C-alpha cells in the first residue's frame, strides 16, 4: 500500500495583497487566505498516485485554527487524513523552527504508518523561501528532489521512484530510493474537480489537531519565535520595471520591426552565443 504525506501551508492570496507604501509591510487585513498553489498541485499528484497504486494520502500543516479550510480543500481533492499542528508555542516560527516541528510530526506519522513519499510545494507564495521542504528532508535524512515536474514511476516492490525535475536549462531525471521527499512545481499534476460526495465529505471533515504536548512532544527551546534564528531587518518593494519600448509597424514596416526587434535581442550581452547565431 502506497502512503504519501503532503505538507501544506495556508497563505494570504498574494494576487490580492497590497504593500503599505510607507511602512513597506504587507497589508494582510482583509486579504483572503488560500491553500498555497504549489501545495495544491503536490496534493493533486499524491492523490493521483494513490488512485493508481491504492493506499492513502495524509496531509499536515502547521498554522492557526483557520487553516482547517485549506486542510478541507485537500480532503476534497481526495486526501484521506489531515492533521492540523496548532498551538501558541509554534507561533512566529521561521523556516528552521518550522521544519523542526514538521520533521517531528512526519517521523511520528511514519512510525505508525510508514510513508513512501513526502510531498511539498516548491515554495510558499508568501515567503518564497523554498526552504521548508528540503529542511524537513535533511532533518529526516531523506533524499530530496526539488522542483519536481513529473513522477514517472513509483515502484513499491523494488522501493524506488523516478522523478523529473526542472533546472534552469534542462530537465533532469532522477531515480532514488523510497522513502523520498520532493518539492513540486505546478506541472506535477492538475488540480482535480472533486465529485460532489467528496466535496460534501470534505466540508464536514474535522482534522486531527496536534498540539505542542499531544500526541507527541517537542523540545520547547526549538519552537516558535524562540527557536527561530532568522531576523528580518528590513523588507521593501522591488523597483518597478521601466515601460517597454514600442516599435511601430506604421513607422518601420513589418520587416523593419522584425529587424529592429532582432537587433535588440541579439544586442543583449551573451544572447547571440546562447542562441547559437552570429550577429
Amino acid at each position, binding site marked *: 500500500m502506497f502512503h504519501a504525506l503532503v505538507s501544506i501551508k495556508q497563505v494570504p492570496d498574494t494576487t490580492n495583497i497590497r504593500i503599505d507604501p510607507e511602512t513597506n509591510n504587507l497589508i494582510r487585513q482583509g486579504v483572503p487566505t488560500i491553500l498555497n498553489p504549489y501545495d495544491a498541485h503536490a496534493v493533486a499528484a499524491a492523490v493521483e498516485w494513490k488512485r493508481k497504486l491504492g493506499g492513502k494520502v495524509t496531509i499536515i500543516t502547521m498554522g492557526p485554527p483557520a487553516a482547517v479550510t485549506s486542510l478541507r480543500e485537500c480532503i476534497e481533492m481526495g486526501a484521506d487524513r489531515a492533521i492540523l499542528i496548532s498551538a501558541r508555542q509554534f507561533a512566529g516560527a521561521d523556516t528552521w523552527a518550522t521544519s523542526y516541528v514538521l520533521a517531528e510530526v512526519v517521523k511520528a506519522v511514519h512510525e505508525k504508518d510508514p510513508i513512501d513519499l513526502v510531498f511539498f510545494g516548491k515554495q510558499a507564495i508568501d515567503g518564497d523561501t523554498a526552504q521548508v521542504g528540503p529542511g524537513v528532508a535533511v532533518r529526516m535524512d531523506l533524499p530530496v528532489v526539488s522542483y519536481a515536474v513529473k513522477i514517472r514511476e513509483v515502484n513499491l516492490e523494488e522501493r524506488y521512484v523516478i522523478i523529473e525535475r526542472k533546472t534552469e536549462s534542462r530537465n533532469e531525471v532522477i531515480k532514488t530510493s523510497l522513502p523520498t521527499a520532493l518539492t513540486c512545481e505546478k506541472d506535477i499534476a492538475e488540480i482535480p*474537480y472533486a*465529485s*460532489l460526495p467528496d*466535496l460534501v*465529505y470534505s*466540508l464536514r471533515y474535522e482534522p486531527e489537531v496536534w498540539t505542542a504536548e499531544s500526541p507527541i512532544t517537542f523540545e520547547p527551546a526549538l519552537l516558535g519565535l524562540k527557536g527561530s534564528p532568522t531576523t528580518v531587518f528590513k523588507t521593501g518593494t522591488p523597483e518597478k520595471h521601466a515601460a517597454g519600448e514600442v516599435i511601430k509597424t506604421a513607422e518601420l514596416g513589418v520587416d523593419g520591426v522584425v529587424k529592429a526587434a532582432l537587433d535588440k535581442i541579439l544586442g543583449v550581452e551573451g544572447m547571440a552565443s546562447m542562441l547559437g547565431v552570429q550577429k
Partner: protein
Amino acid sequence: MDKNEKLEFDVIVVGAGLSGSAAAAIAARGGLKVAIVERGQNPGSKNYFGGALYTHSLLEIYPDLWDRKPPLERPVTETGFWFLSKDGMVKTTVQGGKVNSQPIDAYVALRAKFDAWWAEQAQKEGAFIIPKTLVVDFIRENGKVVGVKTDRAQGEIYAPVVIITEGVNNLLTQKLGLAKHDIQGDSAALAVKQLISLPAATINARFGLTDNDHGVAMSVMGDVSMGLPGLGFMYTGVDCVSVGVGVTLEALREAHIKPYELLQRYMNHPMIAPLLAGGRLMEYGAHIIPEGGWKDMPQLFTDGVLVAGDAASMVNALHWEGTNMAIVAGKCAAETAIEAHQKKDFSAQGLSSYRARLDQRFIMKDLHQYRNLSHFLKTHPDFMAIYPTFLNDALGMFFTGFGKPKGQLYKDILKSLTNRRPLLKAVGDIVAFGRTIIGI
C-alpha cells in the same frame, strides 16, 4: 459520514445570495434540513450591487440583527435625486427628520463582505452550504422536481422542495419553462460601477457628513445616462464611494454607447469629479438588473419548486428596491416549504400559498402598481433627456433672474421647456408618468 450516502435534504436552495441565504435561514430555523448550493468560491464572491440594503428586510430575518454585528458600511442619512445637466446639477435631497430616525431605513453595503456574513448566519441556523458547485439541471420523478443535478461527478442532491434564487440570469427558471423568455433587452439594465477608495474624513468633508455614522445614497438622472432610459447612483461607504450608472441593454445597443464610457463620462462630470478627486480605484464591476418587474415575472412555483429574488424579476426600478424584495420573498418561500413539509404536499397546489404570501406583502402590490414603468420609459425615450436638463435651466434662470422683469423670466423658463417639448406633450408626459406610478 459515508461518501456513498445519497445526498438528501428537506429543501435545496440554489444560490447563496440575499434571497437564498434568507430562505435557508428561515427553513433551517423551522426545523428543515437545508442545503444551499452556491457556484462561487464562497458566498458573496459572485454577488454585486449598487448599493444599499434595507433595514426592515434584514430585521425580518434576524430580529437580533445588531447583536450579530452585520458588516454594513454607513447608514443612509441623506438621500434623494441629483438631476444633472451637461455642466450643472439640481439636488432634491432629504436628510434629518424621518430619514435620520432610528432604526435608519437603509445602509450602504459591499456585497462580497455582506453576503459572506449573510450566508454564515444561515449556516448558524443549521443550513449546509455547498460552495464551488453549479446546479445545471433538475432530477424529476413522474414529472415532478425532486432534486437537482450539479456539474460535479455523482452530483445529484435530492429534496422534495427546491427554492431557486439563482439571480437575474435565470437559466434554471427558464429550463423549467417557468420563465417564458431570456433576459429582455428593453427591460434589463446593465449597471456598471466603480468603487473608489477615499479617506473617511475626505468623504465626510465632501459630502457634508458629520461623521462615519452618516452617509448618502443618491439616484442621479439626466446627463448621467446621456438622456437614455437609466439612472446613475452614488453611495458612500466608510472609506469608499460607489459610483455607477445603469441603462437598459437595448438603449445602449441602439445608441452605440459602451457602458464604461458612460460611467467614465459621469465620473468626469464637473459636478461629480470633485467628489471623487484623488480617490483610488478599488474594484469595478457590472451587473444586470431585471427592471421589467411585473411584465417579466416568471411563474413563481410549480411541483417541487419555488422561485424568488432577481430570478423572479422582483425589482422595483424606480424605488431601487430589489434586495428587500429578494429577502422577504426568500422568507415567504421558506415558510411555504415548511408548510409543505407539514402537509406532506409538494405539488404546485400545495406550494401555491407562496403566491398568497407574496400578494399580501409590498412585493406583488408594488410590482403590480409599477407594472407599466418599463413600457412608459420605452414609449417616452426622451423623458430622461428633457426634464432633468429643463429643471436645471428653470431653477438656474429663476435664481439668477435679478434685475429682469419677472414676466419675461417666466416666459424664458417656459420657452426653455417648449424648445425641447411642446407644452401639451410635456403635460401629457407628466400625466402619463403620474398614471404609471399610481398604477392606473
